[in-house]
């Protein structure tokens, strides 16, 4: 696996906004058919990292490579054309439009003659339903249904199916399971697995360790804009990851506190608080 050329790679990427450094020396890579889980608490720099990956921000320093060639994305559209698709929580779906219209928004299939283009509803609906069903959402059978009537998981699936259909090679999923119930989240995780099976490189951003463990091959923990840990599946237990993520900052503080206490109290360890 490791000798493959990664589809997308970041080498020592820094991002700062004026005097504020948000990302420090981020190095990441993601291969075909692999899920990279980016874990991090709120404010760790996850969204800045996503925006840098998807072309919204440009790195201040460092390089990005696609298939081993250096790339830079001038805007989100540019990144999309290179095959990087970002799916936000409910992003890319319009609640009061039909499934077929949602699926093809901005790239409508047309038929007709000359200047009189006709939106091909039948074709849009049947392709949309077929693509979504291929991802295991068999409950969707009618492309005329409005997306607002679908569950959160189904809307996510629609957005992912759409990205894959339009030629995404790298799928960036921004907290896809955050607002979902257990069952719906499981649904989305199945879809992530399906995308992986189809050879996509998936970057899965989450703060739910359980969900990350279920689909991840490779994990990176982000703390205060830097990668605090980088390991492969099976290297760490769930508890260790949770400690890393949730504790990363507070554990260090706690240790410092304890040390300070010990110095002041002749090496006595403080009484455990219950």
């Amino acid at each position, binding site marked *: 696996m490791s000798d493959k050329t990664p589809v997308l790679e970041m080498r020592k990427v820094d991002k700062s906004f004026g005097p504020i450094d948000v990302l420090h020396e981020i190095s990441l890579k993601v291969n075909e058919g692999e899920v990279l889980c980016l874990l991090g608490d709120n404010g760790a720099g996850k969204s800045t990292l996503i925006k840098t990956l998807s072309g919204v921000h440009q790195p201040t320093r460092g390089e990005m490579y696609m298939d081993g060639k250096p790339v830079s994305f001038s805007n989100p559209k540019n990144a999309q054309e290179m095959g990087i698709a970002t799916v936000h929580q409910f992003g890319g779906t319009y609640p*009061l439009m039909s499934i077929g219209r949602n699926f093809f928004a901005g790239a409508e299939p047309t038929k007709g003659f000359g200047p009189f283009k006709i*939106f091909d509803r039948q074709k849009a609906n049947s392709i949309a339903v077929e693509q979504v069903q*291929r991802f295991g959402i068999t409950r969707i*059978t009618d492309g005329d249904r409005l997306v607002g009537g679908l569950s959160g998981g189904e809307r996510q699936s629609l957005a992912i199916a759409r990205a894959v259909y339009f030629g995404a090679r790298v799928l960036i999923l921004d907290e896809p399971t955050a607002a979902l119930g257990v069952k719906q989240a499981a649904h989305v995780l199945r879809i992530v697995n399906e995308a992986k099976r189809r050879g996509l490189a998936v970057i899965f951003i989450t703060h739910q360790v359980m969900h990350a463990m279920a689909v991840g091959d490779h994990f990176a923990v982000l703390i205060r804009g830097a990668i605090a840990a980088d390991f492969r599946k099976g290297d760490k237990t769930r508890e260790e990851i949770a400690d890393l993520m949730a504790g990363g900052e507070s554990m260090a503080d706690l240790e410092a506190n304890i040390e300070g206490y010990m110095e002041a109290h002749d090496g006595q360890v403080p009484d455990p608080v219950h």
Partner: protein
Amino acid sequence: MADTQINQGAVKRSGGFSFLSLFRRPEAGAAAGFILIFLFFGYFGVEKNFLTALGTSTWLNFASKVGIIAIPIAFLMIAGELDISIGAIIPAGGIVMALSVETFGFNIWFGVLISFAVAAAIGWVNGMLVTRTRVPSLIVTLATLFVVAGLNAYISKQIAGTTQHSMPDAGVISEFLLGDYHSLVLGDGDNAFTIFRSLQSSFFIWIAVAIACFYILHISPWGNWILAMGGDQESAHNAGIPTKRLKIALFMLSAMAAALVGMTEAVLANTASTTTQFGMIFNTIICVVVGGVLLTGGFGSVAGVVFGTLTFGIVFQGINFTAFDKDLNMLFIGALLLVAVLMNDTFRNLATSASTTKKK
């Protein structure tokens, strides 16, 4: 998981008809409302000729002028914007044409062209201001409403020395197309059968505008862009839809529709006035909302707005055919708007939950 079965039978069925799918249509509520209102006034107005050809023309003529503007306004509202500058663009359309013909002696069709160009320019300014500054379109067009109203009066007086321009009769064809009364009676004598009587040209222009706009919103791919833009502007932009250019085009469309109404009025009355038509601002918005368009954008249909305009036309004019006190007119319109908004809300909830397949 890997060998997911694709529900082919159900996929094919998506082209068929089902009762539930009716609820998904934005015009469902507006159509139902129209039928109710029509029956109501038909019953109470039958003795005062509400149902005769002439009676029908009364409210159709009124509705047509509102309707021509209401559809482009609906496009803007579906896209999440509003345009109230039309109140000043209507007289601007009339006086630009009247000035071209009367003062400068141009051919009337050249005057029509200039009038459209002026309106398009105002719409372009509206669109540029809204897309560049992100100031809400209500405020931007409120400002242009007064700017254009001021220019209407000032330029009229500077050029022609008056705010009332006479519009000379300008050829049979242009009168016929822009501002005349039309009747169609089949047979003669005792067998005469009236199809319609005294319908203004604007009614037929309205039909043409409605057909063209129906094509844009529901048949062409641009309609999908307008709906997507209103649904979620950022996603639409990310999906590669040129949201800014589209918005500017929509503002130009509504301004040109307003100018068109101003021109038909000028040709019909042989006079053009600079009076700002504040009433039309509210009338168009009422028609659009009664027609089932969501104020926050992303949902609506041309047929719905046409039904909404017809309903509004009946309520506005129909009271003259009944025994009710005419002072109650505004009350009726207010009640209509309230009922329509509440009904549309219900229909929209039905729309999102309406599913032709049983939940498994």
